[in-house]
């Protein structure tokens, strides 16, 4: 009810926003090609399966209360509970050549992406222990996650043949700083009724970039990325419809040969330390090296290797009405790869107060969540443009139901 009220309220106000779109912005700066510099900064974290209440208590408090824990477990999906985080800090610019249609582009960015999918049974095992599964086999297959941080240096070109159309493309060098990728395809745990036997089966892989070489911009891999897209406009009745299409971070990183790789496919049964001689139990406990054959099995398969990983990029399209003043509407969609990201579609509505100021509200569905709401404001002058967005308002309003918190700021200076 609160959610519906909030959506209705914002729609009535007519704000137009972006939500659940990745941090990066496109390159369109107006009907006249111009030189510019801009600063993009954003953080986008979201999950429809976990809640802000749970995550904030988990991260910031001393004790996770049983009530919050139980509520969280009730709300989880049986097979997949996704969360994602994107961060980007980018300095972008364009040099318009001889005040013509061609603009050289550059971009320097620090990017991080994390996503994880946790089956409900895995969360139950982690959060409550195995006792409640005594006599049962707990299948928690499907646990996976990806984390990556990289820096980009890209150069490109934008061609604006008409005032309402522009094409752009950038090719970039990617420095792979840090990387972790885990996939557990098969995992189950059997706990006997009396607890005297634990059996588990694991199949999957884990890859981690050089753990001895960490820090900002350290070099653990290299790759390339390609961004391209276009902007065009259609004339409508009393308004212009602007259409933007962009492909961002199409590329990959080859993480270097110091990347640690584990592949495991093992079954293991643990019945406790075997004490062959009860009359000498103290020494046997002391002497017993608690080597875990599961760990041993994993260790046998540890290797160092190069590994290629696609960048978690996206393709996005947006159609947005532009008026001199008044209500504006539009919508778009976002697809991402290698990001555990469901297709995201959204509607945007907003109000343009004048040619300089507009606000937008978006309501979308998909991505790392379900229903998502965001709010943005745009301030445009001839030499200066600022955009600010607050995303995942639904998680702020209903912290027990949604998780997320995002903010983006974009400052541009045109000359």
């Amino acid at each position, binding site marked *: 009810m609160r959610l519906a009220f909030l959506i209705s309220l914002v729609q009535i106000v007519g704000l137009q926003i972006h939500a659940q779109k990745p941090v990066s912005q496109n390159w369109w700066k107006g009907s006249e090609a111009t030189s510019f510099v801009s600063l993009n900064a954003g953080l986008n974290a979201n999950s429809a399966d976990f809640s802000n209440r749970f995550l904030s208590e988990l991260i910031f408090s001393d004790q996770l209360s049983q009530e919050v824990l139980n509520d969280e477990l009730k709300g989880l999906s049986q097979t997949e509970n996704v969360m994602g985080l994107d961060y980007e800090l980018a300095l972008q610019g364009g040099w318009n050549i001889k005040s013509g249609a061609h603009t050289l582009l550059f971009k320097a960015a620090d990017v991080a992406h994390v996503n994880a999918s946790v089956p409900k049974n895995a969360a139950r095992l982690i959060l409550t222990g195995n006792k409640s599964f005594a006599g049962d086999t707990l299948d928690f297959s499907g646990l996976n996650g990806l984390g990556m941080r990289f820096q980009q240096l890209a150069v490109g070109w934008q061609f604006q043949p008409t005032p309402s159309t522009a094409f752009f493309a950038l090719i970039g060098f990617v420095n792979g700083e840090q990387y972790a990728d885990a996939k557990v395809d098969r995992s189950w745990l059997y706990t006997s009724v009396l607890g005297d036997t634990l059996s588990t089966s694991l199949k999957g892989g884990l890859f981690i970039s050089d753990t001895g070489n960490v820090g900002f911009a350290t070099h653990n891999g290299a790759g390339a990325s390609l961004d391209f897209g276009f902007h065009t406009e259609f004339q409508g009745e009393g308004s212009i419809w602007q259409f933007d299409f962009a492909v961002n971070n199409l590329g990959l990183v080859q993480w270097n040969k110091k990347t640690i790789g584990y592949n495991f496919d093992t079954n293991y049964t643990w019945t406790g*330390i*075997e004490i062959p001689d009860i009359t000498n139990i103290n020494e046997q406990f002391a002497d017993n090296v608690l080597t875990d054959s599961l760990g041993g099995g994993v260790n046998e398969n540890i290797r160092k290797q190069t590994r290629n990983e696609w960048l978690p990029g996206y393709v996005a399209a947006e159609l947005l009405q532009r008026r001199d003043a008044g209500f504006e509407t539009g919508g778009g969609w976002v697809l991402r790869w290698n990001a555990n990201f469901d297709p995201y579609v959204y509607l945007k509505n907003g109000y343009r107060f004048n040619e300089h100021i507009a606000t937008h509200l978006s309501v979308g569905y998909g991505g790392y969540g379900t229903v998502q709401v965001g709010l943005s404001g745009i301030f445009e002058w001839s030499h200066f443009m600022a955009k600010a967005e607050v995303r995942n308002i639904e998680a702020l309003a209903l912290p027990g139901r949604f998780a997320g918190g995002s903010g983006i700021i974009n400052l541009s200076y045109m000359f």
Partner: protein
Amino acid sequence: MANWDVDALVPVAHGTINFADFAPEENVYGDGESLLHLTAAETLISLGLDTLIGIPDYSIDTGFVVPISINFPPGVPFFYQLEETKFDLKDVELTRALIRESRITIFLENTIDKPVLFEYGIYSATLDGDTFLVQARVEANDTLSRSFTLDGYELDLRGEEGTDFNTIVTFLQAMIHPDETQNHQFTAGDEFNIKNTVKGVVPEFVTGYFGNQSVLFEEDEALDVFAQFPYQSVNITDFHVTLTIDNGIGADLKLNIQELRSENTVTGANAALNHEVINNNQLYPRAINLYDLTDPVKHIQKKLTFSDENSNLDELLELRPDRFLANLDIEVNPLGDISLGNDFAYYGHNISAFMQMDVPLVVSAKGVVLNDTSDFQFIAPQPNNPLDRINYGSLNLILENRYPIDAEIQVYLLDTFNNLLDSLLESPALVLGAEENNLGIVEFAEQSIVEIPIGPALFDQLELTNYLKISAVLNTVGVDSVHLRNNSGIEYKLVADINARTKK
């Protein structure tokens, strides 16, 4: 990152307790029907040559003082002594011996200004036809000490005439060393001293008449077969015990076992044997000399059998003895010198009493208390130690008992002065024994679960604990004796059932 509490069920340890594990491997075996037998072979008595016919250490001191001044040429003996030494062996009259070990030390002192050649011989000792003879040069105004052995020499102990016994013949001679070129003028009072010591004579073989001697032995033999079984008492219903008296001495014997007793020195319990052998003289004929050094003696053995019908030996075993005590009276040659001086004894061929015990573990026990105290050290949970995160819970001891024995167990925590601190169990736990079928075989194990509460309070007590005392009251299942088999056992599994914090 916040803490949260999880309920975990984790196996800690497992194993099998088998009665066979408590005894040395050589003392336990399973028969064709897997029935466990406790066996022991103990030599209660072993009397050898050294006990019956020991040749004593002896020493001969000889001094010679020149009475008058006299001129003597080199190479001509100025002192000569042939001497018979008779050992005091009481009734024993040895005529011949072969020496296995011995040590002879000769000390010579020369007080004149010329080197002297001493010759020392034992006429009675020969090796391959050669007499034992030592020549030694002692420098002017000097002393000399030398050591020899008689190992392997044959001693003729019949004296110079060949008609005596226990007698050796030695000779000693001294002269100015023949290498000297001038005569020596002895002055009255010049002195020579010779000391000859023979020690540690161990014969390989002796012959003669060993006399009619009677010796009372009080033997005390430790027994370790029961040491690992911490029961206090149990009813043994079947046993097979033999006592073999083995005579390896070439002399007739009369043996009287005055008393045979077992004792548990820990509990103080003891029992004396009732059997026809007690206080009854047993005559043992002499061993036979085969005159073959590789297998020289045919022993004469007599075996005594003990059963529950002719003895109370089960009482001696049930008290878990750690020693056997025997008072034996052995009389050698009770009929006199019927061998005409041809008694003999070889090294390693003794008079022995050898007990062999085989106890099938068919037992009954009612209210038998088993106590075992062991050292214990608990390392208290430290920061970052997983134990420090336990809120509460229990250690569940899951027992699959295939023995037909019930046990009521409790574990006590004792401090360094053996003061009781606490007990692990709130009340003694009953571990049920399995039922035997009519063939005395356990078909199905009986499961019991003993819950041991754990938590910070217990950890505090464990930290003060120096000893763990396990106390169990054992009762065999049913009214009859039960069978302990080597394919039985108590399988135990220790499982931690705990509520724990994810972080300290």
